């Protein structure tokens, strides 16, 4: 058995059709305003975004992964930290609803970001439901447009990944989406941007690990309020303004 599930690698692959290409993770709004023009600027933007906007999706993905792991698999290696007293497992839409709402209140300052998250969640749910059929993903369908991080976490669980890996996966997509958008919008050197992505990924490891720890505590306590709440006010304002402007390449 491999130590890294192949399904996790597929979920991390931007070639998996999941709707991410239509979103820049706030990069286009920065480019439009001249706040991001070069590789040097991106060098400054990535760690800032990792520190301010990564913990919320990472925490939600890790929590969803822990929740979606069937009780029978919880005792295997990586789920010893999941101390859920009831062994409850969200195999109904109702079971997911509070965790989905927790995503909305953490993205409260920008309806545009909530919409983008739900659009990408719906797209990924179609793909993941076909790739890794599972009761948890089926149950998420009852929400119609669940938040992207929840679907990502539930899909990661179905693909055999751990909550910590799901958190890293969410941060990986945040960095990758920003880098891809920056290359497309500014024609930056893909080699240089690749190096920045690797660096940002290294810096993001403690953020992902911290978010996963918080998520496991939240799941153990059955309390979504314990999930991380970090945000970025300028990113929120720009997301709203971007959403209302016309002739943009990316939806967010």
């Amino acid at each position, binding site marked *: 058995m491999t130590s890294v599930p192949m399904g996790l690698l597929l979920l991390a692959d931007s070639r998996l059709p999941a709707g991410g290409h239509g979103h820049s993770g706030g990069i286009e709004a920065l480019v439009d305003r001249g706040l991001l023009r070069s590789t040097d600027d991106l060098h400054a933007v990535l760690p800032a975004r990792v520190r301010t906007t990564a913990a919320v999706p990472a925490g939600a993905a890790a929590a969803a992964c822990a929740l979606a792991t069937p009780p029978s698999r919880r005792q295997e290696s990586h789920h010893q930290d999941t101390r859920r007293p009831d062994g409850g497992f969200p195999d109904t839409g109702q079971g997911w609803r509070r965790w989905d*709402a927790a995503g909305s209140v953490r993205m409260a300052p920008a309806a545009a970001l909530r919409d983008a998250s739900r659009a990408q969640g719906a797209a990924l749910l179609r793909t993941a439901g076909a790739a890794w059929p599972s009761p948890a993903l089926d149950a998420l369908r009852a929400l119609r447009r669940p938040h992207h991080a929840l679907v990502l976490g539930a899909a990661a669980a179905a693909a055999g990944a751990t909550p910590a890996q799901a958190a890293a996966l969410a941060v990986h997509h945040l960095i990758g989406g920003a880098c891809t958008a920056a290359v497309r919008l500014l024609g930056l050197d893909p080699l240089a941007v690749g190096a920045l992505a690797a660096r940002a990924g290294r810096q993001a490891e403690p953020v992902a690990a911290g978010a996963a720890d918080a998520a496991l505590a939240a799941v153990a306590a059955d309390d979504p309020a314990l999930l991380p709440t970090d945000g970025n006010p300028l990113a929120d304002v720009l997301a*709203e303004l971007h959403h209302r402007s016309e002739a943009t390449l990316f939806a967010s």
Partner: protein
Amino acid sequence: MSAPPAAPTGRTALTAAATLRAEPAAGRPRLRWSQAWPVVIRATGADRVHLVHGAGGPLGGDDFSLDVEVLAGASLRVRSAAATLVQPGAAGGPARWGVAADVGAGGFLDWAPEATVVCDGATMRSRLRVRLDATAGAVLRELVVLGRHGERGGRHRGELLVDVAGEPLIAHTTELDGADEVLRGPGGTAGARAVGTLLVAGTAHTAPHTGTHMATHAVADAAAPAAERGGEAPGVRWAWTELAGPGRLLVAVGEPGAVGAQLDRQASAPARAQRS
């Protein structure tokens, strides 16, 4: 650990817990409070108090809290006598300011203290936690400024947590640091020194300042022209957003004067719209 900067006043760290309660009463509301120096409370109107910081500060190491209770049918307006100036303290560590407010059925809380200014070398942790009854309302205004004129400013971590009828409405934490090149860079605040928020939460309530009745949904709703829902002007970028629950939020980022002016303009917009 390096030696912390000396406190400007030289005093030791303080812990203080104050309480404030608004009760409905025939004719006029009644306010009760227990102040805890240096958190001083002054009644300045039938349903209004001003907070005063009595010892210069808060300083690093100080831990102040205020518990607010607005009983069913009561209203309360909270202001401050001046900006809160957070400075490093001899005790080191962050200054803490925690506010917890409960607003009962039909009650209304209007929370609008002056700016919190975090001076160079200082660290502030603040938390504003508000629980509203299903029929209560609140307007919460907060303005954080990094540094005095000519300063880059210190560190501020602010949490805003609001529940309506037991359901979370917003849970948001903002970390700002004027000395952190990453957080003040283009992926953070892009050099802005001020962040302001104006949260209009809950259902129908009484308008602040004017006393006129105001439905929450009168505030810059989705049907309003785009120019009233957000924009960019010299010194400030701002946007209103609809929350998933009952409420709306304005976020403004930019220079202190422009952000403060934008909050003031937006706070009075509903009353203006009613008159026209």
